[in-house]
């Protein structure tokens, strides 16, 4: 169990810059997630930590040791591949024992440790099966056992749940969390699924086109996004471009489409901003300290455990309100006038990001 530090890691593939100087600090024993859309560089970062790719510049430290150019085989950062990479010509036992045999451990010891690992992932009794005789979830468990059995300094998981069906995904998610807690091991987890990331992680780094946009606890990231990208990547969000027209202390008035909203918290220097409001913070009944937005109903969408009301206002702007109460939406029909209320403290103003 070590802490991992990435210092100004740059990686290019041909003409494309995959990583533009990544800095990260992963504490020993935490479950740290790299989250971002495909192509953001999260898997490249993971492969560089695993030693399967090497950065053009920058450094990687495990504890105090600089491992930047240490070959994968000597690094002890074991990767669980997205496709599991189980060797089809070896049994479950031989797959799991592979790393131990390379370490030239005595036979008894190998047997004991493989049994321990298979028990940990609840696959005892499957030793003599071949990978093709296992279900997707079982293969996943073998891959995890194979990685854990060598007592890695860091366990790396590359989109481990992406090949599983929805139900199994939830099960494996808590399973991974359980194992990580039981062993207290440092885990770096890569996913593009923000819900999965929030559910499983101690901390999350949100990545976008080769840079880290924000690092924080799931709650930080969701409730206090630091950039427009993080705000819009974390679930469905209302994002409205606007301009700061008046500042008093840390409060500002913003304007868009001739609509002015005042008394909002913002300390940034930029005047070109976006207004970010989570749909569940948009209310259909008046609340205290609220701004109000009037428009007409465009759609009412029923999702079962919640309902969304999409409103149109200003110059073809949309706002989404999410509620769990049927009564809130009673009688709301498309084209009817409606007013949305948001507590000023729930409105986030962020500098507009260049595209």
């Amino acid at each position, binding site marked *: 169990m070590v802490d991992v530090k990435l210092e100004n890691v740059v990686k290019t593939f041909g003409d494309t810059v995959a990583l533009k100087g990544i800095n990260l600090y992963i504490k020993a024993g935490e479950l740290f997630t790299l989250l971002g859309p495909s192509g953001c560089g999260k898997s490249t970062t993971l492969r560089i930590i695993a030693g*399967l790719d090497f950065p053009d510049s920058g450094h990687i430290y495990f504890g105090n040791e600089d491992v930047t*150019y240490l070959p994968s085989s000597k690094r002890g950062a074991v990767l669980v591949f997205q496709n599991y*990479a189980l060797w089809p010509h070896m049994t479950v036992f031989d797959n799991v024992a592979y790393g131990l045999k390379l370490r030239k451990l005595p036979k008894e010891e190998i047997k004991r440790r493989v049994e321990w690992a298979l028990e940990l992932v609840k696959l005892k009794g499957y030793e003599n099966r071949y990978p093709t005789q296992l279900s997707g979830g079982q293969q996943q468990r073998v891959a995890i056992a194979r990685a854990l059995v060598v007592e890695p300094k860091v366990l790396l998981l590359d989109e481990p749940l992406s090949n599983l069906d929805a139900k199994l995904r939830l099960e494996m998610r808590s399973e991974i969390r359980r194992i990580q807690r039981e062993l207290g091991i440092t885990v770096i987890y890569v996913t593009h699924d923000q819900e999965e990331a929030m559910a499983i992680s101690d901390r999350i780094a949100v990545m976008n086109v080769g840079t880290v946009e924000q690092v924080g606890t799931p709650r930080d990231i969701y409730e206090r996004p630091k950039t427009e990208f993080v705000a819009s990547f974390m679930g469905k969000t209302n994002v409205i471009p606007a301009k700061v027209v008046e500042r008093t202390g840390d409060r500002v008035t913003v304007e868009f489409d001739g609509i002015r909203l005042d008394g909002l918290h913002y300390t940034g220097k930029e005047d070109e901003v976006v207004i970010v409001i989570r749909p569940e913070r948009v209310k259909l009944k008046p609340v205290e300290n609220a701004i109000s937005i009037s428009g007409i109903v465009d759609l009412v969408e029923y999702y079962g455990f919640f309902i969304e009301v999409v409103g149109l206002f200003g110059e073809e702007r949309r706002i989404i309100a999410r509620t769990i109460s049927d009564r809130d939406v009673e009688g709301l029909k498309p084209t009817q006038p409606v007013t949305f209320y948001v507590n000023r403290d729930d409105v986030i103003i962020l500098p507009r990001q260049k595209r």
Partner: protein
Amino acid sequence: MRVSKWSERLFGTPIFDPVVATSFLFPLLYLISFLIIPVLAMLAIAFVYNGHFSLHWFGSILGSDYYISLPSGDFYKLVTLPSGEQIYYVQGVDFGVILNSLLVSLSVMLLTTILGTIFAFVMARYNFPGKNIVRILLFVPLLVTPFVNVFIVKKMFLPNGLINWLFYDILHIFPHRIVIDGLVGVIIAQTMTYYPIVYLNAYASFINIDPTLEEQAENLGSGGFHLFRTVTLPLALPGIAAGATLVGIFSLEDLAAPIVFQGNPLARKLMSFQIYSAFTSGFNVGSPQLAALAIIMLTIAILMFLGIRKYVSMRQYAMLSKGGRWKPRIAKPKAWQAALIYFLVIPMLLISIFPQVGVVLLAFSESWSGTWPEGFTMQHIMSIVTQPDIERVIMNSVMYSTAAIVVIILLSLTAAYASSRFKKSLLGPVLDSLSTLPIAVPGIVIAMGYFFFFAKAFPDTLLDPTNLLGFNPALVLVLAYSIRRLPFAARSIAAGIQQVHVSLEEAALNLGASRWKALTGILIPLILLNLLGGAMLSFVYCMSETSVSITLGSINPDYYPITARMVELMTSAVGSANLAAALGVFLMTVQIIAIVLANLITKQRYSFIGLT
């Protein structure tokens, strides 16, 4: 541990690793030493005249009527036999050596494309009673029986041969008996030998077309020939063209047909034969003019090869499919289609397999002067085990070929591993091109290069071909076989490596394995079947190699490979053709065993010479 920029550039891995470096350097150095250097060194003399750089020899070839001329002679003649009967004698017209070679090659490409595409389309798209028999019959023309099959083709077109018996005596379709010889004989013989190459490529292309593409076209109102012309054929065309080009190159370098038809002077006026005859007639092999001719031949072959690679790489869409379940489009033929299949396609197939059938008949018959052979005998077949000189050539070939496949497997494995796993390497594309290049280098050019190279580099030793009876061709033949047959095994093995996801090796590395361990413990066991398939494939090809075997291999009779003895039997005393046929039957048997074994072991359909 530091990263090394040059290791990353050369070998695609920033941390230098001896296993990776060897995988690049071994095949690369081998190909440079035994393909590039001998051929270039030899060819360089074509550019020297009176001690200076000069294009003199090229000028002397291109300016000569012998090499390029306006057509002369009659394409066919009506000849009156002593019996008073008139026959058509068809031999083609003379355009000079270079144009003759080109025209023969183009004609063979055209004819094999028509024949191969028709067979492939019928087999890929129609279900008809007897299809399984046809499927087996289609394997027959794939069997390589050097020289003897051409000999049978020639026999088929004699006045009393099978073709005239069938179309003149029985069906009365021919107005007169037709005898083919010269360039036309070469074209017909090569067409019958090589059309399976187009067939295999075209069949694979038709099978690989995503059925939904055709279904969508039908859905939009297309159908019948319009559908074939607008969707099916364009999608299959890259595969068909690749097969046809391969046939064009094979035709260009073919020696069997010109040798069998050499009684007619026109059949001798082909580039391959011109170079070959230098070997048989007193060793002016190293002459600069011949070297210039070899360069011209090599250039044409390489241009064809590069052209098709470019064309195919621009049209890699035959496999463009989004998954989903494929329901192959196999239909029951309509009445008129069935009529075509039974009365045209299958008879054509039967005629096209007759050369192989004829080889077997010849091997078991006492004489064959009429339409059919006469008298059954085991004598020729028994000679394989009783006649010491025949036993010896078989043993020689088995030894040369076995040694060659060991080298071929090592070369293919390292080259395929290097270029598929370390894609960032600058050497990768070089290695890729070099290991497929032997397809485009005519065997006779390699023979010439080796002759020159070994005579100059190792004079008066066992390796010096001018040493005649003091020359042992073993090493030279093993080298030539390993170079010439490399592309075939390399493809099979590269395909195997591509099916093994790279993460399987990375997982091993990541768990602490060295490259060597990951290669020997993970990759090689996973592609073992491909290695075996590749080994068998190359063994068969080595056994039936002709160009180098009948030139460098036929200098010292003690060390003859099979094909050297076969050409000797075919071109010398009467009656020996039966013995050559017996050797042909032996080769066919080896091939059938190899095909069956390869299919059983690898559980995939292996067809020889399949080159898509």
